[in-house]
């Protein structure tokens, strides 16, 4: 293989004059947006600050780049060309939870991962929102009976929107996200419907056989998560 660029990318270096021309003409018109027209001659509006903030919040969402399982492949397709979630003001994925306000949970959550997911969720600044993607995140999905599988993300963190499917199509995920933006704009949020598993200090757990057994392995002030399978839905 040679290091020469091939013909395909040569010869395509024409100056792009079209945009320039477009901009040179009608320079003033560009600022006369529909919104401006709607306001008429006085460009002022009166609204409640909360309402305005909610609208702003819903219109510019930063997603957490968070891949778990198969659903994350469809999530990538939702971000990428063709579906392009960005069209709806739901931003580009951010790798750090500190910069994100929406977490899409795209996959099966297992015991080892749930404490870490909780921590990532805790690291996101308020206000934050969660979209559950796929049956696994909703209920454990096809793996619900597994010994190691959490029966849905809502067992760990509060969830605003559930998008069913295995995996949901990108269109479905977009619908879910847009629905959530709508709700945010209306100032709605969802309550937690199940009692979530919490990260606790080991010494705070109720003393029982299991705790006694692990006492030699785990430090008193270590954080742990205790799963009670019998209480799971």
């Amino acid at each position, binding site marked *: *293989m*040679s*290091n*020469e*660029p*091939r013909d*395909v*990318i040569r010869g395509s270096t024409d100056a792009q004059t079209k945009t320039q021309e477009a901009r040179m003409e009608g320079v003033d018109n560009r600022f006369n947006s529909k919104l401006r027209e709607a306001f008429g001659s006085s460009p002022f509006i009166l609204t409640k600050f909360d309402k305005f903030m909610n609208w702003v919040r819903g219109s510019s969402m930063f997603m957490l*780049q*968070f*891949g*778990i*399982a*198969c659903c994350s*492949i*469809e999530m990538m*397709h939702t*971000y*990428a*060309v*063709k579906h392009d979630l960005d069209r709806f003001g739901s931003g*580009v994925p951010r*790798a750090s939870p500190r910069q994100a306000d929406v977490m899409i949970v795209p996959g*099966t959550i*297992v*015991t*080892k*991962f*749930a*404490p*870490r*997911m909780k921590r*990532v969720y805790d690291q996101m600044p308020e206000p934050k929102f969660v979209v559950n993607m796929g049956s*696994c995140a909703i209920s454990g999905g*096809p*793996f619900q*009976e*597994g*010994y*190691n*599988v959490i029966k849905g993300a809502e067992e760990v963190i509060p969830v605003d929107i559930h998008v069913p499917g295995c*995996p949901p*199509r990108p269109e479905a995920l977009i619908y879910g996200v847009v629905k959530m933006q709508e709700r945010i704009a209306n100032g709605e949020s969802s309550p937690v419907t199940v009692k979530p598993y919490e990260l606790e200090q*080991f010494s705070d*757990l109720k003393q029982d056989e*299991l*705790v006694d*057994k*692990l006492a030699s*392995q*785990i430090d008193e002030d*270590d*954080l*742990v*998560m*205790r*799963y*009670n*399978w*019998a209480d799971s839905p």
Partner: protein
Amino acid sequence: MSSYEEQLDTAEGVDYDAIADLLGDRVVRRETHLNAEGFVVRPDQVAESLTLLREEAGFDHLSMVTAQDYEDRYETIYHLTKYADRTHEVSVVVPTDPENPVSESAASVYKTANWHEREAYDLVGVEYDGHPDLRRILLPETWQGHPLSSDYDQDKPQIVQFDEHKNPLEDDHRGADSDTMFLNIGPHHPATHGVLHLKTVLDGEQVADVDPDIGYLHRCEEQMCQQGTYRHQIMPYPDRWDYASAGLLNEWAYARVAEDLNDIEVPEYAQIIRTMSAEFCRIAAHLLAVGTFALDIYGDFTAIFMYAMRDREKVQNILEDLTGQRMMFNYFRLGGVVWDLPEPREEWFENIRDFLDDLPGTLEEYHDLITTNEIFQTRVIGTGVLDPEDAKQFGTTGPVARASGIDYDIRRDDPYGYYDELDWNVVTEEGGDNYARFLVRMQEVEESAKIISQCVDLLEDWPEDERNIQSNVPRTLKPDPDTEVYRAVEGAKGELGIYIRSDGTDKPGRFKIRSPCFCNLSALNAMSKGEYVPDLVATLGSLDVILGEVDR
């Protein structure tokens, strides 16, 4: 080839009597599995027997280690085969006492046994004497019980620790000016392709040691399959192992093993459809690998990632027309496929031809953007080198092994489907570095396209009244009790194998998955020691692991 090896190889395959002679009185008993003879050896003579088989008989590939428990014993099976000839197989069966299940470890003979045995210990509870590092691999350290052993109670509560991944070097940190430091990468990190956690020890900027911590996506695939009936309930699960749209390749792994177990024939027409659709999956999976690899190497959502996604969409559209789903196809059935090609057929064939016609141009574009890119080349040539000896020791397969010059591809070496009737090549590269692995994948896309186009030709001319998509399969399948079989196919990432032991019911008694990603990932430490951190990330990207398949 040693003289012994020649003597052992007969025209039909392995001469099992000669192997029995070779192992001598180490063999307690012989059993017959559908794929190979099993030699039962004493638990304290495992390493010896395996060394003999590797050195004298040429069995250099430990494909999988299966552990299971019976009423009266625990058992470990070592499935051996050869890189030079996949049809030569032998199983070494090691029964242990149920009260005290300890047998000798094989980690000193095959490096890949290290991880396999840790998994067996974790899930089934067999302990391995002389294992260098016997701790849980998939489940959390504090887990109680071994979930795939028969006395496990799933309703018992569990406690999982969330320590902050303490620095294991803290104690022997040599003063303030030491350069050694500990770095946690993952489990939530954009470069790990999912939920993988790398415990990395750095010496300055160089990697001194990396210990992949897996199990963040262990969703009990084996248990799920053991709870499903052969006929219909198992097939949906393979789609979710390697979920990079490689679903049909995985389904084929199950179809192949279950068809062998139950003696089911597949009509030729269905075989061609299978071959064609599976190769589409391979293209989609390799494109994802290429796209995310470029993403790892030069930054955020760059052009090449978008290009790869665009081309994957095309493949997914074709597969959606065929199967009705974009990713979780559930299209294969035992004895064939679920339905015929979509109508109007001509239009669908046309779509495929359009895709195939565009493909050379598209690949040209990829090569312009990546292969010949100087930045890319500096990052990948000569980094993450896996030499052939290590590649074999770690049981790597698929593009990873082929990039280290190992000419091993199950589609050709142990043919199934329609592959042996078609004209295509196995791609190998000599470099063994990140660049070679990337090149192998790119060329394999071309080969897959070749296969597809031949299949389309065949399907187009297939007489209308001979379009037999499924053979007759009984409604309930109940293979004879204690039939054992291990079969593999060439998945997107390498040798994807399944071991089934039947127990006389319509559900498998033991269902064990051999995941190529699991083995490939175990080589990461050897590949990235002494390299820089960014090279570690590049190496991980070029291994192309899918965590769903690593953890199962």
